[in-house]
C-alpha cells in the first residue's frame, strides 16, 4: 500500500470520526481538525510506523472523548435530561433481553480483544523502543549483501567506527555458550562477549558490583564476568558474596565483578557478559573475524540518515577487503534497525502483519454481526418506532435513542475486550518466560500499558462509529406509512432480503475456509510434536561450526579443521562418539542426481538421493553399518573415492544383492564427479525437512575427507553429563582455533521441543481465532436468519391459516437456509481444495486425512447454519397465527 493510499484511508477514517462531534462544531472546525490531524500524522509517519500507529490510536480516542464532551457542552439542561432518559431507556432494553445483550457483548468483546491483543503484541515485539535509558536511539548495525544480512568484518568495522558521524557508542559483540561452575555445579549459559561500552550505551549500571571496564579487555587482564540477575538467582542461589569471588568459565578461573539488574539482557537474551579482548577487536587482517554491532543514533539523526552514511563507509571498506579475499559480487551496504525489529528477522514482520490482518478481519466480521443482530432487534421494534414517529417524535431523537443501545454494547464489549486482551498479554508473558527462557528477548514483556489502552480506545471508537452509526441511521430511516400499513413485515425491500442471503452465504464460506485452515494447522502441529527422527536421540547433542571463508580458503584447510575437531573430541571420556555431517545435496534436486556404472540412464532421468558428507562415527547418530565397512583411514583425500549407501537406496537399485564393489558417480556435485566405489551399506535414517512430506531414507554418504563443505553440523553423544560434553566441545574448538565459535549446543529434545512448542502455539492461536470465527458464524447467521424470517412472519401466518403444519413450514425455511448454505459451501470448496492441496504437498498430512477434515468442518458448519435457522423459526411459530396476523 502506498503512502498516499494510507494517508487517504486514515484521513477518511478521521473525517468519519469527526461525526462524533455536534454538527455545529463540525461545520466550524471539522476541516481545520482534519488538516491538523493529517499534518500530525505525516510528522509521526516520518518517525516510523510505530509512531504513526500510536498517533492514529490517540487521535481516535481523542475524537471519542472530546466529541462526547462537546456534545454534552452543546446541549441544554433539558436535552441533557433527554440524553439521560435515552441512556436509561437503552439500558432497560438491554436488561430486558439478557441473552441478546450477552451474545452481542461477547461477540464484540471477542473481536475487540483479538484486535487489541494482536496490536499490543506487535507493538511490544517489534515497535516499542527498548526499555532502557533513551532506548529509542539504540540500534543494531548490520552489513547487507543483496538481501542477505550478516555480521561486520572486524577491519570494516574499524573503518566505519573511524568515519561514522551519525552514531555514538558503537561497539562489537558476539554471543556463545559458556560453561559456568565447577564439577557437579556446572551450567551452560549464554554469554555476550562484548566491548565494555555496551553498559554505557544502555545507560544501565550494575545492581551489585560493577560492569565491564576498558582495562578488562586489555591483554593479560584478569578474566572477569558480569552475571545477569537471573543467572545470579539460578546458578548462584542469590548468594550476594558471589561478587568478587572466582568461578570457572570453560575451566578457566574467572572473577565475578558484577550482577546486572532484573530484566536486563541486552543485546537480546544475554545471561552473562565477558570482555571482548582488544587483541581480537584490533585484528588488521581482513576476513579473519566478524562481529555483531550496536550503536546509538546521535541526537536528531534518523536511522535512515545513519544507514546511508554507514552504508557508504561499509561499501568502501568492503571493496578494499574483497579485492584480497572473497569474490562476492553483490554490493555491500548497511542496515540500521532497532534491536526488536532486527530480532524479528525478515519473516517476522510479515507473520505479525498477517496476524493483525486476520484480527482486523475478525473484528470486521464481529462488527457486521453485531450490527445485524441490532438491526434484527430494531426490526422487532419497527412498529413502535413508526408509531412514535407518527405521534411526532423527531427523527433526531430516534436516531439518538438508536445510538445509545449500540454505544452501551460497544462500551461493554470494549471493557470485556480490554480485560481479555490484558489477560492474554499477561498469559503470553508468563508462558514465554516458562517455555522460551533462553530464547526470550529481554524486552518481550507483554502487559497492559499505555499503548494497549490507546489501542483499546481507538478500536472502541471505530466500533461505536460503525455500529452505532448504521443502526441509528436505519432506525431514523423508518418508512412510517409502510410500517403502519403492514406492520413492518414487508417494509424490508427485496434488495434487503438478497443482501441478507448474500451475507449468510459469505459468512458460511469464510468461516468454513477459516475453520478448515485451523484444523489443518492443528494436524501439522500434532505431526511436529509426535515427530520421530528415526534414530536414537538419547544423550544426543548438536551444534554447528562454519569456518570463515577467508581463513579457510581451501577444501584442504577445512578438512584439516574438521579432522582436528573429531580427533580432539574423541580424546574426551565424556564424549561417546562424534559425527560431523554436511548436507551436500537434497533428493529430487539436480545436485542429488547419481549414475550407476554399467546402467543406462532411465527415460525418467537420473535417480536422485540425499547426499551427505560425513566424518567421524556414523554410530553417533544411531546409523549402523549393515554390510561392508565404515569409512576409515583408507579413505583419505588422495585415495580411491568411496561412498556408503543407505539400505533403502541399495535395495532399490540392487534388489536381493550386495552393492559392495559397485560404482556410482555424482555428476551434480563439482567435487565428486569421479566414479566412486561402494564400500558399505548403512541402516536407514529418514532425511530431509522434518515437516516435509517427501522425507526419504535414500542416501549416499561421502567421506568429508574426499568432499568439501563450508560448514558442518557437529553431532555428539554424551555419557551422562551433557554439560561436561559441551565443555569438551568448547575446549576442543578453542584449542583448534580460538577465533572459531560454535553455534549454541542443543539436545535433540530441545530442538524438537522448541519447534513443536512454536508450531503448537501458532496452531492454538489460529484455533482460538477460528473458534471465535465459529461463534461469529453462529451469531451472524442467527442475526441474519432471524431478520429474514421475521420479515416473512406475515407469510408464515397466512400459510398456517391456510392449513400448513408447523413441520412443513419449518422444513420450508430450513430448505431455504440450506440453499444459502449450499451457495456458501460451493464458494468455499475451491478454496478448501487449494488449502488442502497446499497442506498435503508441503506437510506430512495424508490426502484422506485432509478430505476427512474438510468433510467434518463442512458438517459442523451445516449444523450451525441449520440451528441458526431453526431457532428463529421456532420463535415465529410459537407466536401463533392469530398473534401474527392480528398485528395487521
Amino acid at each position: 500500500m502506498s503512502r498516499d493510499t494510507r494517508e487517504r484511508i486514515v484521513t477518511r477514517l478521521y473525517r468519519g470520526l469527526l461525526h462524533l462531534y455536534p454538527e455545529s462544531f463540525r461545520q466550524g472546525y471539522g476541516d481545520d481538525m482534519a488538516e491538523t490531524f493529517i499534518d500530525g500524522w505525516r510528522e509521526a509517519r516520518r518517525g516510523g510506523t510505530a509512531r504513526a500507529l500510536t498517533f492514529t490510536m490517540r487521535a481516535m480516542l481523542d475524537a471519542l472523548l472530546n466529541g462526547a464532551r462537546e456534545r454534552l457542552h452543546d446541549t441544554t439542561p433539558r436535552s441533557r435530561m433527554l440524553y439521560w432518559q435515552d441512556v436509561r431507556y437503552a439500558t432497560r432494553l438491554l436488561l430486558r433481553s439478557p441473552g441478546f445483550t450477552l451474545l452481542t457483548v461477547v461477540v464484540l468483546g471477542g473481536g475487540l480483544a483479538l484486535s487489541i491483543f494482536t496490536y499490543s503484541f506487535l507493538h511490544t515485539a517489534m515497535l516499542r523502543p527498548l526499555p532502557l535509558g533513551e532506548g529509542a536511539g539504540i540500534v543494531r548495525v548490520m552489513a547487507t549483501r543483496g538481501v542477505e544480512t550478516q555480521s561486520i568484518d572486524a577491519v570494516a568495522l574499524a573503518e566505519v567506527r573511524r568515519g561514522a558521524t551519525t552514531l555514538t557508542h558503537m561497539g562489537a559483540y558476539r554471543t556463545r555458550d559458556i560453561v559456568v561452575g565447577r564439577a557437579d555445579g556446572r551450567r551452560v549459559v549464554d554469554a555476550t562477549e562484548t566491548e565494555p561500552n555496551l553498559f554505557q550505551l544502555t545507560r544501565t549500571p550494575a545492581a551489585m558490583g560493577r560492569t565491564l571496564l576498558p582495562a578488562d579487555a586489555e591483554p593479560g587482564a584478569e578474566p572477569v564476568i558480569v552475571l545477569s540477575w537471573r543467572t545470579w538467582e539460578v546458578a548462584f542461589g542469590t548468594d550476594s558474596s558471589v561478587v568478587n569471588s572466582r568461578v570457572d568459565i570453560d575451566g578457566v578461573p574467572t572473577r565475578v565483578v558484577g550482577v546486572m539488574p532484573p530484566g536486563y539482557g541486552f543485546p537480546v537474551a544475554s545471561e552473562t557478559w565477558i570482555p571482548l579482548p582488544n587483541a581480537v577487536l584490533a585484528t588488521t587482517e581482513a576476513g579473519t573475524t566478524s562481529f555483531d554491532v550496536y550503536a546509538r543514533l546521535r541526537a536528531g539523526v534518523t536511522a535512515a540518515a545513519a544507514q546511508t552514511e554507514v552504508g557508504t563507509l561499509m561499501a568502501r571498506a568492503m571493496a578494499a577487503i574483497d579485492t584480497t579475499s572473497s569474490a562476492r559480487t553483490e554490493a555491500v551496504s548497511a542496515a540500521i534497525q532497532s534491536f526488536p525489529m532486527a530480532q524479528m528477522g525478515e519473516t517476522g514482520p510479515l507473520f505479525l502483519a498477517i496476524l493483525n490482518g486476520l484480527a482486523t478481519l475478525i473484528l470486521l466480521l464481529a462488527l457486521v454481526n453485531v450490527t445485524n443482530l441490532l438491526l434484527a432487534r430494531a426490526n422487532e421494534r419497527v412498529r413502535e418506532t413508526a408509531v412514535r414517529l407518527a405521534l411526532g417524535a423527531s427523527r433526531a431523537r430516534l436516531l439518538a435513542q438508536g445510538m445509545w443501545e449500540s454505544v452501551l454494547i460497544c462500551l461493554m464489549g470494549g471493557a470485556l475486550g480490554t480485560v481479555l486482551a490484558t489477560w492474554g498479554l499477561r498469559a503470553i508473558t508468563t508462558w514465554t518466560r516458562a517455555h522460551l527462557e533462553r530464547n526470550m528477548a529481554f524486552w518481550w514483556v507483554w502487559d497492559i500499558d499505555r499503548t494497549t489502552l490507546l489501542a483499546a480506545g481507538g478500536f472502541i471508537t471505530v466500533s461505536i462509529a460503525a455500529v452505532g452509526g448504521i443502526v441509528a441511521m436505519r432506525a431514523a430511516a423508518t418508512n412510517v406509512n409502510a410500517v403502519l400499513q403492514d406492520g413492518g413485515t414487508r417494509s424490508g425491500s427485496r434488495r434487503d432480503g438478497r443482501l441478507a442471503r448474500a451475507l449468510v452465504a459469505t459468512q458460511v464460506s469464510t468461516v468454513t475456509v477459516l475453520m478448515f485452515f485451523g484444523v489443518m494447522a492443528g494436524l501439522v502441529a500434532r505431526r511436529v510434536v509426535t515427530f520421530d527422527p528415526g534414530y536414537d536421540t538419547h544423550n544426543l547433542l548438536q551444534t554447528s561450526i562454519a569456518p570463515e571463508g577467508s581463513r579457510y580458503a581451501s577444501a584442504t584447510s577445512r578438512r584439516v579443521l574438521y579432522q582436528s575437531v573429531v580427533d580432539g573430541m574423541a580424546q574426551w571420556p565424556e564424549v561417546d562418539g562424534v559425527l560431523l555431517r554436511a548436507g551436500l545435496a537434497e533428493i529430487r534436486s539436480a545436485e542429488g542426481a547419481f549414475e550407476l556404472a554399467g546402467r543406462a540412464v532411465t527415460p525418467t532421468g537420473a535417480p536422485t538421493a540425499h547426499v551427505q558428507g560425513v566424518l567421524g562415527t556414523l554410530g553417533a547418530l544411531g546409523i549402523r553399518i549393515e554390510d561392508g565397512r565404515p569409512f576409515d583411514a583408507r579413505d583419505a583425500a588422495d585415495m580411491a573415492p568411496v561412498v556408503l549407501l543407505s539400505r533403502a537406496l541399495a535395495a532399490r537399485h540392487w534388489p536381493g544383492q550386495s552393492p559392495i564393489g559397485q560404482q556410482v558417480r555424482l555428476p551434480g556435485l563439482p567435487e565428486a564427479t569421479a566414479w566412486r566405489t561402494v564400500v558399505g551399506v548403512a541402516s536407514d535414517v529418514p532425511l530431509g525437512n522434518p515437516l516435509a512430506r517427501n522425507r526419504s531414507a535414500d542416501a549416499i554418504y561421502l567421506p568429508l575427507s574426499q568432499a568439501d563443505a563450508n560448514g558442518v553440523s557437529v553431532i555428539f553423544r554424551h555419557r551422562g553429563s551433557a554439560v561436561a560434553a559441551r565443555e569438551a566441545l568448547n575446549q576442543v574448538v578453542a584449542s583448534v582455533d580460538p577465533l572459531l565459535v560454535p553455534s549454541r549446543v542443543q539436545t535433540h529434545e530441545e530442538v524438537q521441543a522448541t519447534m513443536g512448542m512454536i508450531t503448537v502455539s501458532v496452531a492454538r492461536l489460529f484455533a482460538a481465532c477460528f473458534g471465535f470465527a465459529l461463534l461469529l458464524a453462529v451469531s451472524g447467521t442467527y442475526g441474519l436468519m432471524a431478520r429474514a424470517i421475521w420479515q416473512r412472519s406475515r407469510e408464515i401466518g397466512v400459510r398456517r391459516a391456510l392449513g400448513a403444519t408447523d413441520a412443513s413450514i419449518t422444513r420450508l425455511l430450513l430448505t431455504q437456509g440450506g440453499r444459502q448454505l449450499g451457495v456458501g459451501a460451493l464458494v468455499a470448496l475451491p478454496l478448501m481444495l487449494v488449502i488442502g492441496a497446499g497442506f498435503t504437498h508441503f506437510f506430512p498430512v495424508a490426502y484422506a486425512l485432509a478430505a476427512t477434515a474438510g468433510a467434518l468442518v463442512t458438517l459442523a458448519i451445516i449444523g450451525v447454519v441449520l440451528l441458526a435457522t431453526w431457532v428463529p423459526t421456532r420463535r415465529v411459530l410459537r407466536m401463533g397465527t392469530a398473534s401474527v396476523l392480528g398485528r395487521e
Partner: protein
Amino acid sequence: MAPESPPPLRPIEFEILLTLAGGERHGYAILQETEERSQGTLRLETGTMYRALRRLVEAGLARPTERRQPDPQDDERRRYYAITAEGRRAAELEALRLSRLVAAARSARLLPLGT
C-alpha cells in the same frame, strides 16, 4: 464582575493565546509550538485544542483568519488563527496573575530565590 477582571483563563487557553501572541498560527503549528515550549511535557490533542479554540473564538479572544498556504512550495492551504486585542489583554492579565502566584510561592520558599 468588573469588565477589567475577566475570569482566569484555563491553562490550555492561556497556552494557545501565548502561542498566538507570537503571530498567526495554523492548528498544527499551535500544537507543535506548545509542545516545544513545554519541552514535551504538555502534549495537546487535536480535539482538546479545537474545543479550547472554539471557546476562545466565542469569547472574542481569538479569531480565525483566511486560509493560506503554510509552505510556498506546497499548494495545501490551512486556516490560521490570530489573537484579538481582548485576547492579548486577557493573556496579559493571566500572565500577571501567574507572576503574582510565582512571587507568592517564592516568598513562601516553595521556589528558590532568583529562579
